[in-house]
């Protein structure tokens, strides 16, 4: 009896640390992004060229309408009619019909990435799931993988596809998550679906008065041109940094969603 109890505890312990908590939308699984070096495309002249990124967990898919519905069911203060204006602007969940009504029980609609959510709401959801928002570095690092190679720079065909997405108009209705191919790390939809919140989305833009001190600010507004050659083809990265810089934490946007990241449990034998 002792051994079976132990076994039960072991299973539960593993379950707590590996399986995301609290989610009724069981379709979203997380993957481990192995640790490595990230070379940021956009950086100020005094910023490091290389950043060491420790391994972390990341949802394979963005959070869906269905996922978020479950969240607001359990957390009433994040419902549309109850959220404080400081934490989400007037367009919070505007595409839903009501507090707990997406407007359809169609699996396609439930499976669309949730948008019109603010940074505060995304953070709360992530915490509810036992995780957090990825940092911009972690997000860009995961997104710098190609389809079959670890480095997007070695996958010109996929890079071209990504660029083409910016030349197509926003669809009237968002497709459901998971339709874009999984990249080398097994993550879908980092490109070509919605923009995504990160925990430090505005760190690229200095908010102080003395804006002349960092090169990034000048680059973002005017001359994001010649940077190290590596950035020559990286228009999507500039577009993403540009987009993030235009946001404030309470903003909600029609094509901005998010996904959850996790700290990995430390290995214990």
């Amino acid at each position, binding site marked *: 009896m002792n051994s079976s109890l132990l076994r039960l505890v072991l299973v539960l312990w593993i379950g707590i640390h590996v399986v995301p908590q609290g989610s009724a939308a069981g379709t979203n699984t997380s993957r481990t992004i192995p640790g490595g070096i990230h070379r940021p495309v956009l950086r100020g002249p005094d910023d490091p060229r290389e950043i060491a990124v420790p391994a972390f967990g990341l949802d394979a898919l963005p959070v869906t309408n269905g996922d978020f519905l479950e969240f607001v069911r359990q957390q009433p203060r994040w419902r549309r009619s109850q959220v404080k204006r400081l934490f989400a602007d007037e367009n919070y969940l505007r595409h839903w019909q009501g507090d707990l009504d997406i407007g359809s029980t169609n699996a396609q609609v439930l499976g669309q990435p949730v948008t019109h959510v603010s940074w505060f709401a995304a953070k709360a959801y992530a915490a509810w799931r036992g995780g957090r928002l990825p940092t911009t570095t972690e997000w860009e690092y995961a997104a710098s993988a190609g389809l079959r190679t670890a480095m997007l720079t070695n996958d010109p065909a996929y890079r071209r596809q990504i660029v083409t997405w910016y030349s197509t108009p926003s669809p009237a209705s968002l497709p459901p998550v998971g339709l874009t191919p999984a990249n080398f790390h097994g993550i879908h939809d980092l490109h070509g679906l919605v923009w995504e919140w990160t925990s430090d989305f505005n760190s690229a833009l200095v908010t102080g008065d003395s804006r002349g001190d960092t090169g990034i600010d000048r680059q973002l507004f005017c001359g994001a041109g010649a940077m190290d050659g590596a950035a020559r083809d990286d228009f999507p990265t500039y577009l993403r940094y540009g*987009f993030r810089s235009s946001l404030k934490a309470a903003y909600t946007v029609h094509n901005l969603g998010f996904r959850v990241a996790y700290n990995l449990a430390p290995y214990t034998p």
Partner: protein
Amino acid sequence: MKPALCPSKPGTLGVLAAMALAAALPLAAAEGPVTPGEPRGAAAKGVDRTIVGQENAVLSFAPAVPPPIQRTNATKVVVELEVKEVVAKLADGVDYLFWTFGGEVPGKFIRVREGDLVEFHLKNHPTSKVPHNIDLHAVTGPGGGAASSFTAPGHKSQFSFKAMNPGLYVYHCATAPVGMHVANGMYGLILVEPKEGLPPVDREYYVMQGDFYTQGRFGEEGLQAFDQDKAIDERPTYVVFNGSAGSLTGDRALKAKVGERVRIFFGNGGPNLISSFHVIGEIFDQVYTEGGIKPNQQQVQTTLVPAGGSSIVEFKVEVPGTYILVDHSLFRAFNKGAIGMLKVDGPENLIVYSGKEVDAVYLGDAATAGTGDKVGQLQAQVQEAIKTDPKIAGLTKDIQIEKGKRVYMQTCFACHQATGLGLPGVFPPLAKSDYLMADKDRSIRTVVKGLTGPVTVNGKNYNSVMPPVSLSEDQVANVLTYVRNSFGNSGDAVSVDEVRKVKGDVSH
């Protein structure tokens, strides 16, 4: 990179504290207490006493221009501009996702007066994929306004500036990556009229050039995607006026009447190319080089317009017709779309321009010696020289014999044999023939008319039929010359004239 201390989350407590402080302390130069909802810093801005009243700016889509400003005081002008990402025509059958100020490329024309205070409202349509901002070259201030107008989709920003400098200025989006935003069509013109205004003209037009970079080739149909490699390498697929190939052609051509003064506000959004602006068939009477306020050059054929720059040109149209606007880098005009039209109606003026007056044949080198008559004269002289000079005459006899031999071998040898001996009892010989050599005219007649009946040649009788031989006069002369000088015969030449004479006798 120093991370921000915290995202812009004021916190309820913080707001309350600020409001309490604001109410408690008098603010220098304030016109009243700070109220929530007012633009940030409104109280600290103070008042500009030169500004009288307020009006909403009249904006126009190219090629139209808002009317000249009549007021003589500075005012506050409210400009509302919406950024919209729209799919529209780049060329026949070719679509493109343009990022636009106001819904079209180029963006709306803004017209204000020197000294005006412009309150700029920039709205980014909720369906936009990316954030946008605006840098107006008329603005004195950081980013030309870009720093203060950075707007996410579904949001709007406001900032104001004083239009201190008159001139014609470009405005464009300056969000990273800037080249891509401009390459997608985010540019337009703002005119700050000088205090005294511009001299009056009859027509004003707004034309703006831009280069476009698509993944597909020129003319490839369907929705085309932006090509960043081509943009970086400055290899455009399209170079067009007013956002599409054909925007100013056919029934969308600009119009004017004979005698009118035309002014074109010409902008170049780039992103890369400089323009060599020229109107075929016209000369610019005045050029405000690079969009300054002085018409500093007159009588200009082609003027340079920098990327991110402008020019104002004025000219009076004198003669009706279609005048073609081009970038005089010609392959852009004829192969990439940088071509437009100005159609001018009215009475002709044949002194200024006559149209085609003569349409005649030109012979080139054949006419260098003069007329055909002269050639004939020379040829006759040559013939005379040949005839009178025995040496030359001898040469011509040799030529006749050679040619005659050819004719003989084709026609006569069948009966008279290659040896000229004929066939005994059947065909008489030509070799050493007394009959042949006795009478020249008779021998010509024999060839031309033929011969039947009994003949005696070299003492022998023959009674056969020689049919008339179908040969040209030249050939008759040549073959008889040959026969009279071969097979042991020796005689003179037979000329074409002699043949002709005999033929004339024979015919009756």
